[in-house]
């Protein structure tokens, strides 16, 4: 059925005025569903996260939330995010020059929390470190992928194309932060997507949503109103393995030198 003159003019006028995505958004607004309008612009965002170690209480809410949101296998070897407990023993007063190596544990990735294991006040230093994909700007995993199945998106996340990945595991070995695993069902690689399906809809990530103390906070570095800029300016910030120049966008506050 050919369109009437009126329909033709309305359609062409709409597409001339509002091209591309804007026209699609307009369709959804006309249909009475403005919230589904795809007005997310890739070039307007640059995602990262602030992780405040001094606020992490090791409750494991982020690990549980992440596994629920992203359907991560419940077995204790698959994690998109996990929490580590560091125990730095006291300095040996007879031999203060010897480095005291930290003890690190992460029972079930912190999914069930941490049972008390060390004694407060014995001279040791104890703290929790939440870990996840660092969404590097110059990511080693992207560089080694032979087929272009993992990539840095224009808005600053490192994502996986599960339809294109062939499960060769190069990226699993290349990631300096150990953030990737091969999914036992799909047999392709899986990792933190920074809840891409949430942040592109204006929500925060599942782990940030669940964190009770605000130890994790999603940050949009291209948004001038994001409090991240104030936080980065007024706090001491470090990324994991800065010597590898990965361009990590997980900004840790209170990061101890013993953390690897």
């Amino acid at each position, binding site marked *: 059925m050919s369109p009437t003159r009126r329909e033709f003019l309305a359609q062409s006028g709409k597409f001339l005025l509002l091209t591309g995505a804007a026209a699609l958004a307009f369709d959804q607004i006309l249909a009475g569903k403005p919230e589904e309008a795809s007005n997310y612009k890739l070039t307007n965002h640059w995602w990262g996260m602030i992780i405040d170690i001094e606020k992490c*209480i090791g409750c494991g809410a982020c690990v549980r939330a992440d596994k629920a949101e992203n359907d991560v296998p419940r077995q204790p070897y698959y994690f998109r995010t996990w929490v580590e407990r560091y*125990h730095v023993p006291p300095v040996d007063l007879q031999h203060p020059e010897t480095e005291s190596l930290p003890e690190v544990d992460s029972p079930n990735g912190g999914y069930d929390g941490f049972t008390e294991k060390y004694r*407060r006040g014995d001279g040791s230093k104890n*703290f929790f470190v939440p870990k996840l994909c660092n969404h590097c700007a110059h990511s080693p995993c992207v560089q080694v992928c032979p087929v272009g199945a993992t990539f840095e998106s224009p808005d600053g996340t490192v994502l996986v*194309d599960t339809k*294109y990945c062939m499960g060769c595991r190069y990226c699993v070995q290349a990631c300096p932060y150990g953030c990737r695993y091969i999914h036992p069902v799909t047999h392709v690689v899986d990792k933190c997507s920074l809840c891409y399906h949430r942040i592109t809809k204006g929500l925060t990530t599942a782990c940030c*949503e669940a964190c009770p103390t605000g130890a994790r906070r999603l940050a949009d570095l291209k948004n001038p109103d994001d409090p991240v800029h104030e936080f980065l300016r007024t706090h001491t910030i470090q990324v994991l393995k800065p010597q590898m120049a990965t361009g990590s966008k997980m900004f840790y506050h209170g990061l101890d030198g013993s953390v690897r």
Partner: protein
Amino acid sequence: MRELFKDKEHLVRVAALAVAGFLVFLLAKARLVPAGFGAYGHFRAGALDDNRARPLVFAGRQAGADCHEDIVKARHGSKHAAIGCETCHGPLEKHAADPSALTPERPDQRDLCLGCHHENAARPAFIRQVNPQDHGEPGPCTACHKAHHPEMEEPAPAAGAVVGTAADPHGAPPAQPAQEVKQ
């Protein structure tokens, strides 16, 4: 012209083969390279939409506040005010979309609290920590504390009090060296 190409028929054949080979390459490329590859970089542009297509599981704290104003009011001024609803009540996108589809479970009123508030050497000092052995009575924490506003109206504990004793269950946690450095 004719003179020039008299003995060069083989060159024309090679050229024709090269052109044919190039056409085969173009056809193969068109078939093998997925749609949208290279639009933003060395990846398939559709993968961005694939990643966006995952369904939500957590509704977000705004969705909770939109309907449950009474809870927002109850939590006002409490240290628990900034905690997301789904931190304790679990993921509730289904409940937010259709309240009758899923009724949130009431979380365990002892284990849930202790997940954050059990004494632990690695836990920073700002969070109140108790040893359940000698704090309060066995049974749900909510027997004394309101979950949405757990602070109890009591005189401020004396300085240097030990946390979690029967005499002073709400004493300030002992100061740690890390805490002193921070201040």
